[in-house]
């Protein structure tokens, strides 16, 4: 019974702390979590991420050992993000641990979510939805820092997923973003990539506003594929150095 084998497969409690370390490391290294920003306390993190206190403590210990966060004791204490010198923290570069097949697979999954979301959105978006998405793309267009661009890009993709009116698609997009955003934050350091992405979004809005389903899906696929192309290119460039 293959279904039962999948359903009852071990959750891998031991790797949960690694997953948290990976996600927070990537967010810190890429600047999505800013230097000196205070992390939520252990209890809140456990609640937000749906894991036990012990798992959170373990993850925070690893982040501390990697000099990504520091902890201040006392009344105004807590865990704070350390200043990062990104170019030098090569051992922690997310591209070090991710293989090209992993990135390409992540891209395909993302493409599946976004292309069907776009198909539904092309049918289901009202004029007000189009206007809102246009505003989000304009924010992305005028953003100058990689972090601001990443946030704006995330908002655009989540908006498209939500415009599908499918709660499941929107949820999957949210889950993917927890991994995706830190990676694209590295891409958004490039002015050329930023420009290319904005152009694709602009075309996408135009096809969406004319409710052209098949053309919208094509552009959406191209958008995610462009991200995936540059992610793999970055991985190879990193490994060549």
């Amino acid at each position, binding site marked *: 019974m293959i279904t039962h084998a999948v359903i009852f497969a071990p959750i891998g409690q031991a790797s949960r702390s690694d997953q948290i370390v990976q996600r927070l490391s990537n967010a810190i290294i890429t600047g999505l979590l800013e230097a000196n920003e205070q992390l939520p306390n252990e209890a809140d993190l456990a609640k937000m991420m749906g894991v036990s206190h012990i798992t959170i403590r373990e993850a925070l210990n690893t982040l501390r050992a990697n000099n990504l966060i520091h902890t201040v004791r006392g009344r105004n204490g807590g865990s704070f993000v350390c200043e990062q010198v990104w170019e030098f923290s090569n051992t922690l570069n997310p591209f070090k641990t991710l293989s090209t097949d992993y990135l390409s697979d992540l891209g395909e999954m993302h493409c599946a979510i976004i292309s069907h979301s776009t198909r539904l959105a092309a049918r*289901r978006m*009202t004029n007000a939805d189009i206007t809102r998405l246009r505003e989000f793309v304009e924010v992305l267009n005028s953003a100058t820092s990689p972090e601001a661009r990443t946030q704006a890009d995330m908002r655009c993709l*989540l908006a498209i997923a939500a415009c599908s009116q*499918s*709660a499941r698609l*929107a949820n999957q997009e949210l889950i993917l973003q927890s991994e995706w955003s830190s990676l694209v934050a590295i891409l958004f350091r490039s002015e050329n990539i930023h420009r290319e992405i904005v152009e694709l979004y602009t075309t996408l809005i135009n096809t969406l506003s004319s409710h052209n389903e098949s053309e919208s899906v094509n552009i959406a696929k191209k958008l995610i594929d462009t991200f995936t192309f540059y992610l793999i290119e970055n991985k190879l460039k990193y490994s060549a150095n």
Partner: protein
Amino acid sequence: MLLTTSLHALTQKIDSIINSTIESTGLLARNIETSLAEIEDVNLEHLLEPSVRKTIQDHIKATLNSNVYCSGAGFASHIEGSGSNKEFWLLEWWYKKADGVKQVNLDLDQATQQRLDFRTFEWFKQAPAVGNAFIHGPYVDYICNTSYTITSAVPVYFNQQFLGVAAIDLLVSRVEDELLPFAADNKVILTNKDSRIVFSTHPRFRVGDLLDISVAKIVFENDYFNLYQAK
């Protein structure tokens, strides 16, 4: 519009759900206003004090208890920083658990609330402009309950100043639960004013789709919804 008896019962149920939702939201907004007015020497920062938060929470919990349809209720406030006052965010949100008894606080810290930036949420933006109840949705709420939701929102004022929004969530699945027994054998489609389908007894016309009104005949409408029959 001449309604058959069975459709008449359905439209009454639609009205009753929407009216009770709007009434509860308005009551929550007024109760919060009244409680704030009773605090002496009130300063907006008082909103973050435990005793004031507790009062607001009690109003929210009372709303959840008294309204059978609603799945979540809350109060959202954003005050711009001025002079020595820091800008601050308040999202007090409670929801009923799936088993229908427990109430849980979303409980977000200031930093998370700031990053959420609920000023961009339609129900937060539109409610003050409308003045009374604003009904948003159906829409995918991936922030609070990750479900297909309708939100009713009413602005809260203090000293004629806009302070925030009281809001109530109604799950689309709950609306269906309530309406199905009244639909009988009728092939009906309920939409919001944007033609977005909220409820349908026709498998071709699905919740979330925009209804092509050329294929349906309108049989009833109120301020928020239209009811159609498939042609």
